[in-house]
């Protein structure tokens, strides 16, 4: 399964001068960002820097109080809800699996934007669900109840649901929280293989080393603003880490992938 490559290889999702926040405080203000098409963009930053807020604003989960989020050149608010859902899929941070639902039924929910009151289920839906299960590596779990699965399996099932939407753009909000390292790698390997097949993938992560390993485009945030952006090799320096995280460190090269590894300096206390 691969995404259709769009004619415009320029960024499909952009934010222009956006301010996003909750009831009484703005978490992100006056921010501009363009998500490069076909890359695996990883957004990192310390706690409460606004990375999840930004992602959710880009995915129209949160309204913008100022500025505009654009999808394919038009403000995202101008599209009907189902149209957005056909172009942009998202794995939310804490999705709730309804009681007792089995994997294939949950994944089938992802077909909603392609269905209607009259066209409630078609063979295309069958194909899409089968493809999504296969792609996410959960095809053999199809008839199992979701609440019986392990953390890593469950995440992949939710990703399968997003895949069933058949969107060329995928957002993953902290998909590796609460997962042990083997499952974290599992999920990020899937993200990478999707990107290699032409999807535009955006992931919010808080593990730096994994972020450096997988990102083809890195966005570093601090206190609601973007501090650095670009390829990992260009952007990541010990000074940057210290500035953003307040952590004096050294960088060594990962022997497996050649990407940077953060090594905190030993404390002299």
């Amino acid at each position: 399964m691969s995404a259709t490559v769009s004619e415009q290889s320029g960024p499909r999702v952009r934010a222009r001068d956006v301010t996003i926040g909750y009831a009484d405080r703005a978490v992100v203000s006056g921010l501009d960002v363009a998500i490069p098409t076909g890359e695996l963009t990883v957004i990192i930053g310390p706690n409460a820097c606004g990375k999840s807020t930004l992602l959710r604003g880009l995915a129209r989960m949160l309204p913008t109080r100022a500025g505009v989020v654009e999808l394919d050149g038009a403000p995202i608010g101008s599209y009907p809800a189902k149209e957005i859902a056909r172009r942009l899929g998202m794995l939310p941070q804490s999705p709730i699996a309804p009681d007792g639902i089995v994997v294939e039924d949950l994944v089938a929910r992802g077909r909603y934007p392609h269905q209607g009151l009259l066209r409630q289920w078609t063979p295309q839906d069958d194909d899409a669900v089968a493809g999504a299960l296969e792609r996410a590596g959960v095809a053999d779990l199809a008839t199992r109840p979701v609440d019986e699965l392990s953390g890593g399996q469950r995440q992949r099932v939710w990703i399968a649901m997003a895949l069933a939407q058949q969107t060329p753009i995928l957002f993953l909000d902290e998909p590796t929280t609460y997962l042990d390292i083997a499952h974290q790698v599992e999920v990020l390997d899937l993200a990478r293989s999707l990107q290699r097949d032409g999807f535009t993938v955006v992931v919010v992560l808080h593990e730096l080393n994994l972020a450096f390993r997988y990102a083809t485009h890195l966005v570093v945030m601090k206190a609601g603003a973007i501090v650095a952006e670009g390829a990992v090799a260009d952007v990541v320096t010990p000074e940057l880490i210290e500035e953003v995280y307040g952590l004096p460190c050294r960088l060594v090269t990962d022997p497996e992938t050649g990407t940077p590894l953060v090594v905190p300096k030993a404390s002299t206390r």
Partner: protein
Amino acid sequence: MKRKRVLVLGPLSVRVRPRSLTVGIALLAAIVVLTVVAVMAGDYPLTIGQTLAALFSAGDDPLAQFFVQGQRLPRVVCAVLVGLALACSGAIFQPLAGNPLGSPDIIGFTVGAATGALVQITLFDGGPAATALGAVLGGFGTALVVYLLAWRSGLAGFRLVLVGIGVAAVLQGVNSLLVVRASLTAAQTAAQWLAGSFNTSTWSDVAITALALAVLVPAAVVLSRPLGAMTMGDEAAIGIGIRVEPTRLALVIVGVALVSVATAAAGPIAFVALAAPQLARRLTGAPGVGMIAAGLMGAMLVLASDLVAQRLFAPTQLPVGVVTGSLGGLYLIWVLTREWRRNA
């Protein structure tokens, strides 16, 4: 992965679940059987032949015709409609509240509809149409109060339910107060009505209810698709293209209207809204909300309860609300024992 069975009829292409279909047909059959039994039974017993004859005005027994067409049939039809409405309302609110016990009879809407109707009966001496209007106003008023009180920079499901419980308790007290303070004749009618009964169902009651349900039930069925997806959480639902806030508002309006109309017709009847959707789900095993199956189950439950209420201690007629409440208690005990066994 097996292909899903699909029924195609022109532009319509829907999924067919064999088990749900079987359950639906079985429930429908049960409703038909119970209808016939209910029409046959009574202090003036009839055989099947006589019943059918009276139903179609073909017999030569005018008394039988009167009983069947004038009393029993409207009662039975009313029971079916009320059960349908209550079950659909429960099927809407339980997923909305995020809790299987978050049913409109527990969070105060039923009681509020009763308050509205009682105000009409005891303070304004209203007739059936006025009572129906009172119930609808009461139901919506209560829903508004509960939502406003539960709103605190956002609506958390659990706060809604807890506030609903508080409001229900207050309104139950108010209902009793209204009965105590009413004039003697009004108090009689009110007390009887408060227990929930089909004793006085007339064709005009049926007409009003049927008219309302003709609009509300299809709306509930249509809205049940996005509702099923909304149980995954607001963000996941937005992600697949559901307009969550407008859908939620529409669901609340339809749900409250359903429970108000049902309460207006027969007084507050507890536990159908709670139990019918869950029983239906256990039988069909289908994911999602299962509005139609729930509705059929509700209709059957109310019909069966009314039959029991009439015949159990004959000639004393129990109010149907008492029977559904008791059955609800048994249902809860059954749920409990299942939990015990599961956790033991």
